[in-house]
């Protein structure tokens, strides 16, 4: 029953507050209710009224009415704190799964000051503080991510309790833009048990495959899993002799190198490799099923690769639906892999 009510409520809210990166707070989408202290305050007013009646004390009546009216006045003030405020999602950040992703938001006050405003998303909240009328303030709201992919908070709550904390006015912003969450890097094993299938790897053959003169010449039939990834990462050089020239080239990070491993774990390995190589400034390319990124170097390239890893197999979230912890429903193998658990 309560679930039904909640889902109906949620639908009603969603109808009222369409997804948008810009949200102007008006009477249409602002809500106001007493807080717990406000409810207790109401009870206190009742007790005061009874005291006034029982002791036939006019001044107690007066003070009760005064405080009651102040309560109503506070309702007005609390509402005005948020009314006219325009909340804009300036930038949805990037980061690794499991980290807090920063969403940069800008709050621009309308013709009234916005005082003591708080933004929150589920479990994290951040104080915007005071925004004078006509001014704006930028805030970074950390959103907890669990999985790689697109991350879009279902709703960002903006709330104020000013002046007395007896009432809270709030609204939601339902952003359209999504943040990109990279796979959580997991140190790739030295020896991967990938069996290469010639057909696929042929497409990813690198023209510069033979470049590294210092490498021991490789023989036909050498397995890519015999590459010493760790040493490669440290020195940036291939110290393993047994490379297959067309596939196991140091310039290529290959999704298929980790045969038999869960897809998500593979992506995590690749992310780790990308990060390591990015640190060293090495040249590398990324080979994903359906997407190939030509070898390059530099932070922009690394970021591009990470993004490609993040959204591999994912669809950009549409307007209507949005999962709270990213777009991915389940892992390829059907079980959820908790990133970081392997480390």
């Amino acid at each position, binding site marked *: 029953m309560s679930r039904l009510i909640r889902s109906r409520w949620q639908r009603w809210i969603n109808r009222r507050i369409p997804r948008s990166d810009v949200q102007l707070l008006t009477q249409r989408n602002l809500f106001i209710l007493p807080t717990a202290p406000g409810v207790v305050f109401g009870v206190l007013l009742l007790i005061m009224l009874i005291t006034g*009646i029982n002791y036939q004390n006019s001044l*107690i009546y007066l003070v009760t009415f005064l405080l009651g009216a*102040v309560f*109503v*006045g506070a309702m007005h003030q609390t509402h005005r704190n948020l009314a006219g405020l325009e909340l804009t999602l300036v930038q949805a950040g990037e980061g690794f799964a499991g980290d807090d992703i920063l969403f940069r938001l800008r709050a621009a006050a309308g013709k009234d000051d916005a005082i003591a405003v708080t933004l929150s998303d589920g479990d994290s909240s951040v104080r915007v503080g*005071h925004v004078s009328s006509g001014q704006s303030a930028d805030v970074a709201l950390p959103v907890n991510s669990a999985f790689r992919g697109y991350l879009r908070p279902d709703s960002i709550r903006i709330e104020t309790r000013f*002046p007395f*904390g007896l009432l809270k006015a709030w609204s939601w912003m339902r952003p359209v833009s999504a943040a990109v969450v990279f796979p959580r*890097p997991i140190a790739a094993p030295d020896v991967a048990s990938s069996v290469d299938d010639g057909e696929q790897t042929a497409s990813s053959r690198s023209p510069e495959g033979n470049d590294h003169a210092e490498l021991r010449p490789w023989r036909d039939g050498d397995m890519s899993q015999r590459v010493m990834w760790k040493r490669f990462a440290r020195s940036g050089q291939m110290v393993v002799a047994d490379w297959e020239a067309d596939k196991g080239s140091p310039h290529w990070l290959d999704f298929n190198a980790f045969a038999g491993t869960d897809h998500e774990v593979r992506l995590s390995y690749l992310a780790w490799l990308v990060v390591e190589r990015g640190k060293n400034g090495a040249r590398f390319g990324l080979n994903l099923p359906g997407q190939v990124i030509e070898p390059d170097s530099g932070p922009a390239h690394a970021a591009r690769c990470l993004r490609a890893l993040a959204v591999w197999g994912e669809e950009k979230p549409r307007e209507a639906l949005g999962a709270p912890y990213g777009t991915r429903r389940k892992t390829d193998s059907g079980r959820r892999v908790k990133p970081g658990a392997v480390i």
Partner: protein
Amino acid sequence: MSFWNRPKQEPETQSDTLPSRALLWLMVSFALLLTPQLDRLPVWLVAICVVLAGWRWLTQQGRVRLPGRWLRTGILLSLIAVYLLRVQGSFTVDTAASFFVLTVGLKWLETRTARDFYVLFYILVYLATVNFLFHQEIHWALVNIAAIGLLLIGLQVLNAPELPGGMKAGWRRLGVMLLKVLPIVVLLFVFFPRMEPLWSVPLVSGSARTGISDTMRPGDISSLAQSSDRAFRVTFGGPMPAYRDRYWRGLILDTLDDGTWRQGGYETYRRPGRVNVDGGVGELQPEEYDVLMEPTDQRWAFALESSVAVSDNVGKEADDLFRFRRPADSPVRYRLARDNSPEQTVPELEPGQARRYLQLPAYGNPRARALAADLRHSNSDVGVIRSLLNRFREQPYFYTLRPPKMPNDGIDSLLFDDMRGFCAHYAGATTFVLRSAGIPARVVVGYQGGESGAGDEYLVVRQYDAHAWVEAWVEGQGWVRIDPTAAIAPNRIESGLRDAVAEEGSFLENEWASAQRYGDVALIRWASQQLDRINYQWQRWVVGYQGQSQMDLMSRLPGGLGIKELGYITAGIVGVGLLIAGLISALQMRRGASRDRYGRVLGAWYQLCERAGVPVRSGETPSALASRLAAAEPAVADAARLFARMVNSHYYRPQSKSAAARDGSDDVQRMRRLLATMKRQLRKASKTQRSNSRSLAHSGKHSD
């Protein structure tokens, strides 16, 4: 790359520690709220509260730490033990109030979070409420309301510690808010139905109130004469009676027992409950007068001779005395009228009554008895009285606030040896002599005199106006007032105690701070009179506005409003008030929106786009949006592009100001018309979609 570094978790200091300023306002408010209680709180309790609050403040400064759980419990238990020892089981409103204060003091030690702050806020607000039970003068009311204001400021600081402006902005915000809601508060105050008490809660005060009591030992009233507290205030419908006629009868003492006069024949009446404190506000008739009496915790009311009750909260009982139904534990206003019609029949004194008023101890004061026999010897009743008064007038009797001690046969020593006494002495002695002479007599206790307040609008009777005199039964005339004091010190009766004891210099000799003591300094006199006038009006119209006054006021309004109608009106006021507030805020919002007419048209345009399935992206140019809309809804493609061009031209075309003003409205109108056209087209398009499933699929491809 810093991807690996988690963003540093900032320690949440906001909710852990309270803002110092918020705490400061709370403490100031607490101090303010204690001031009305200072006279009834024990000193040690006040000191404890100061220490505990000081401790909390030092903690805030970081000098000391708050006590741990064990120490806190220890402090709590020991303070409660001290409190219980001091109170010793007597439960009165006073002890309850001081326990309340103790609670607040202890709460300081565990005020750590915002939640504790709110708990303190509630307690302090209720402390202000309790203060109103004891003090209703305007200055105390202002102190209490100021303290509540400080609490609200504290809450503001708590909720927005970083807010610039601080105190001043806080007060301004609060003031504006109060001004906005003031009409509603006034209306509610006037119309909220003053119900009967839901249940009876006596306001039993442990501390004795200053005032006359129902026993009279020589010396009681002279100690009262050292107090300048107000007893009651009177407004007359007609002219004030002359000073010498201002005899306010309170109670009758008829039994002499071991040198003490007391009240006989009255049951002590202590039913718990509340007196009706409001006697109505109807127009005062010429012969009527309103008495606003300070609380006495007694049932008696004070009245001029031969009065009748007008308001129904006071009733006439035997011996022409007036009584409330219940003890007056808060200021009471009642209305009486002087009855000037001559009495048709002179009542007879019943034998039982005669015995009562002739009662004397079996022995004692032989010389006074001898004097009575001597007087009786030669005279009628009236003659006895007259010659006794002559004796007072002619022999060197003195009226003094410093009478000598007269332990044995006090009446004898007063009449024959010391010849110095106060009104109570003389009244007691006179009654004794008259009774010895066989004339029924009784001591009457009350007040005599009263100064006029500012502008001669009303009369203030203070405790030092307390007086005792005698009434004797004279055959054919009934009870006759005899005042020996008038014979000894005519000043006392003509112009008051101050003049009567002027030579002695004993007027209010222990009351340094009393304004009345310096009554001959014109400025002080004027100031205290003005202050009293404000307080009187306050008490009369605001504090005293209770059931009867409300009914009187309502009966003057057309429609004959009863208490039920008042309830409806109150509900209506609340409803209308909320409605008006909502309307005003809606209007403000609307006005804010309509300031930019372009903005409104643009808003409509965005809405239209969204409805057509083309949500607006931030930072998108009008033409980009239009082309997307055109792709989604080919039906409106041309209109959308045209619209985008108009938007662009509005923002980017350089214009002279006057032309802009003229063209601007034109532009907006054209844009509006265009929007309406687009809407129509969209509706038509969607209709065809619905009728044709194939076209739906077709357009669905477009609307991606």
